[in-house]
């Protein structure tokens, strides 16, 4: 494990506003890691698994994932990431979505999601949650991708 390697944050979120709010609050929490933003599942998966500078090929990453995407369900992406034999299966995934359905949350944890955060409409709670996530991001150890 390389302590000095920077951990990239991959944010898969179709709502530009949400993405902006998430980014702002992450920055406010003092997290300066690189954030890559994708608004659809296809390009996000392509980056995750195939891009030269993507997490599968180089460097550790953590993924912020929204479940409601225009082209596929976030759970599909989660399944791909956490699938047996996937190079990213140890990459932490934070599901950040509006769904607070119990069944959906359980399903995400079953699929291997590491943290599940419901986007609260109350902005203070939302900002608080993101900042806490920022703290979380600053302390977690992200494993290297297996080559």
């Amino acid at each position: 494990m390389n302590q000095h390697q920077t951990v990239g944050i991959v944010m898969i979120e179709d709502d530009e506003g949400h993405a902006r709010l998430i980014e702002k609050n992450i920055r406010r929490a003092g997290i300066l890691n690189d954030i890559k933003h994708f608004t659809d599942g296809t390009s996000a998966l392509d980056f995750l698994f195939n891009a030269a500078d993507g997490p599968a090929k180089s460097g550790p990453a953590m993924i912020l994932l929204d479940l409601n995407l225009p082209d596929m369900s976030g759970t599909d992406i989660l399944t791909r990431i956490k699938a047996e034999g996937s190079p990213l299966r140890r990459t932490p995934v934070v599901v950040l979505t509006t769904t607070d359905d119990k069944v959906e949350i359980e399903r995400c944890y079953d699929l291997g999601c590491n943290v599940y955060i419901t986007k609260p409409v109350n902005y203070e709670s939302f900002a608080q949650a993101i900042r806490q996530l920022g703290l979380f991001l600053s302390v977690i150890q992200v494993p290297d991708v297996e080559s």
Partner: protein
Amino acid sequence: MVSVRLKLPSSEGRVARWLVAFMTLGFIALVAAAIAIGWITIRNRTYTAEILHTQDVRQAIARLQIQMEQSETARRGYVLAGKPLFATAYARSAGNIVPSIATLRRLTHDNPAQITRLDRIEPRFVQLRALRTQSMALVASGQIAEAQRRFAVDASVPLMRGIRYRLQAMAADEVRLLAIRTQRQQRSSALFLSVAGLAAALLLVVAILAILVIRRYTADLAASRDSLRELNESLEDQVATRTADLSRANEEIQRFAYIVSHDLRSPLVNVMGFTAELATAAGPLADLVDRAEAEAPHILTADARLAAREDLPEAIGFIRTSTQKMDRLINAILKLSREGRRTIAPEHIDPAQLVDTIIGSMQHVIDDRGAVVRVERPIPAVVTDRLALEQILSNLIENATKYLKPGRPGEIVVRGHKERNRVILSVVDNGRGIDPRDHQRVFDLFRRSGPQDQPGEGIGLAHVRALAYRLDGTIDVQSMLGDGATFRLNLPSALTIQDITA
């Protein structure tokens, strides 16, 4: 609605009625034939008895003839030969004559002609007997010659001839009677045969008619059963189709509600988020205006001051409260749609105990509001979903403690009774009551009644009604403004899963 009329074939009905009428007639004729046969049989028996009687009479006559002849022969033998053998033969035959005559008289007492003949025979026999006794006595005393002489001259022969002649007449008469009676019996037998034949024919006809009628009715029954089954099947199909339609529509509404509420939250997050950003951004701006006012008042316009100090905070405040309210409403819809998808699990519940639990869990609220909640026992047990019933009752009790009439301490009573296979649970309060115009409205989503002095979104009773429907029940309210309200929950006493899915 499906209207159903069973078709009754009228012409066939008439035919069937005729058939039944013929059959009834046939049965009546059959009974008549049976009576006739019985009567003929009785008559036949009488005829047979008469024939037998005639035979008896003939036998009696023949016996008397033989006795007469034998006794005469024995007497003559005795007179001629004097052998005692003839005397005993005579005694044997002659002794039977008197009883024979009596028998004959008894047998022919209903026949005057025969009685007349007997009346003629009897005196002759008496005379003859006297002569016979005389000659037998003479022979017995050894005076055979005297006996023979007297025999040659006495009236024995003509008497005997007279008796013989009359007995023959009697026999001939009986033969004639026998012929008549035999003929009569034969005629009766023939009649019996023809009546029996007629009855058999009738029986055959009635049997055929009966079979026809039965076959027709069986066919009618089968036809109506078939049409009923067809109807039933089509009804079942219709019901199944409608049920499927309904549940599909229901599912669609649920999904719609879920998607709408869910997808509405997404932009709402943005509105709230950026409003907060705006509020944050408005802070430095207001500071700038303050500083400008202090340091360079000439650059500050009245509009800018107003915008920074009043318009911006006011706008942000309204956006905030509205989005918060919208969030609550969306959450309410989401909750309702989720409630509709929850699996109902009926179990045995004692409502009184459940109400105790509810009261216990909200005791502090009840106390704060200065109300008293009482359970009127006994409340009949009910089989239903515990969580749903608990939510309904706690909503109703919460409402009852919430909308009190000012100046009157709240008094809430929960009671229940059974009506056939339903259980009615009532929550009665002495609160401010509901205007009768609003009795339906209060159960609608986001609708409230009376002064809006209590927090709430108008969700509770909508939720209660949705839950009540879910439990195959109903809910209504009886109330007058200012006079308290009675909410009545009508539930099946035993909810089954079939009731819910059907």
